[in-house]
């Protein structure tokens, strides 16, 4: 783990980190990575990936319209809205 990686991960997650935070995060994240990498010691060559610990199948729903029609509730937490649109800072160059 190095500073460049920490900065890249932070940028991809849209997190603002100060230089001081970066130098603190490098060893912390490095430790976490090392901890997880212990799993690499196991031989998993003939082991199927485990999608879930519960022995259940993916549940499907029927194609019925059962939801929606509540623009007011959907917009209730929006910092800004207008005529039932979300309003955000302009995002096109």
């Amino acid at each position, binding site marked *: 783990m190095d500073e460049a990686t920490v900065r890249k991960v932070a940028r991809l997650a849209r997190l603002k980190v100060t230089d001081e935070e970066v130098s603190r995060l490098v060893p912390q994240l490095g430790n976490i990575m090392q901890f997880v990498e212990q799993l690499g010691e196991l031989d998993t060559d003939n082991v199927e990936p485990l999608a879930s610990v519960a022995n259940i199948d993916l549940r499907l729903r029927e194609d019925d319209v059962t939801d929606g029609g509540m623009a007011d509730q*959907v917009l209730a937490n929006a910092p800004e809205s207008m005529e039932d649109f979300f*309003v955000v800072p302009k995002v096109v160059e």
Partner: protein
Amino acid sequence: MAQLVKGQTGDWEIVIGMEVHAQVTANSKLFSGASAEFGAAPNSQVSMVDAAMPGMLPVLNEHCVYQAVRTGLGLNSAINKTSVFERKNYFYPDLPQGYQISQYLHPVVGEGKIEIDLPDGTTKEIGITRLHLEQDAGKSLHDQHPTKSYVDLNRSGCALMEIVSEPDIRGPDEAAAYLSKLRMILRYLGTCDGNMEEGSMRADVNISVRKPGGELGTRAEIKNVNSVKAVQQAIDFEVQRQIEILEGGGTVVQETRLWDPGKMETRSMRSKEEAHDYRYFPDPDLLPLVLTQDYIDNVANDLPELPDQKKHRFMEEYGLSLYDASVLIAEQQRAEYFETVTDGRDAKIAANWVINELLGLLNKNGKDLSGSPISAAQLGGLIDLIADNTISGKIAKDVFAEMFETSKDAPAIVEEKGLKQVTDTGEIEKVIDAVLDANPDNVAAYKGGKDKLFGFFVGQVMKETGGKANPAMVNEILKKKLT
């Protein structure tokens, strides 16, 4: 029909692969019960799942799975019995989750192929790489306010099929033919309405050029190409741009470019460059999708006759040309219309009337087949009158025009206007005698060797009978009388 492009350093070959996003025809969204219908009031078709409220869980729509499998089978593709939904992570205001649920390493549909029909009358096979299911994003409006964007999440979470082709496409004509055939197949299957104007089918075009048969060049991905015509125009522009760069000693940059239909050019979308680190991982909210062979077999048994099957059947069963068959199968309704017309009648004659007369006139009047004033049974009735010599082919065209105006049956029009063909030898002879008597000079000239006057006599007889005399009989009797 590979189209090579001439550059200053010789010929260049165009290599194109397409990614088509097709909105799945379904009542509700891929993972929520909100309506997927087009054109509703802003944010009126948004569930808390689509708005990505914390704690909401996606539940897969079984019909969207059915539609994807059906489409895969229609594209002659392998169906994967296990597929996995993954999160594609990026930030944009019309993507409230901060990730799109998509399929990456394990798509529901694998490799296949379709046949495309080219303008020069040949066909070509284009490979399908994969088809996967994913969520659509919302819609941002950028032109409503000087400093703000407006976001409508109605489309957010609607099911899309992304259909990826192999880089088998070699030019704008092939690209257009591929898109048209794909749209036709989706419409036959009823899995996407194929409406490019409403955005229910959108194409990204990957373009590169190379020396014929050489190493693949670096490609550019062109977005925002929203019609078959735009695809062709964008390819023409982008190919020239890349050739100019390469011949000028430069290198093509691998990037996403936007097609601008107003300026007729592609331009770089610099903002997207950094964003290509999507960090896919299996969505922990969703288990793998597992399909049984029984399920796949059942979907296969439900398939309609597909465009290419129909095309080949029309050529074999009815002896039609590839061109005629391709025109007739372009829409299911058109093919059905033709089969009703031709039932018990000569197929080539029926195809000719449907394609050259009916579709031509409909097109001229800005109508389509569903608004045709002439039903298939009525057109068949007209053809019967020609076949049994009740009217001549020439009169038939007049009757056809009248049918188009009034929607009346052909026999009624023929009866009403007295258009029945004269096949009575005596009657035709009488008219011929009168014409010959009235033109003694021309008769003498004809007998003196001016053969061309024969047409004049035929014309006069037809004129006298109002076009109703049987042309073959007129010819025969005239010849006899003039020797």
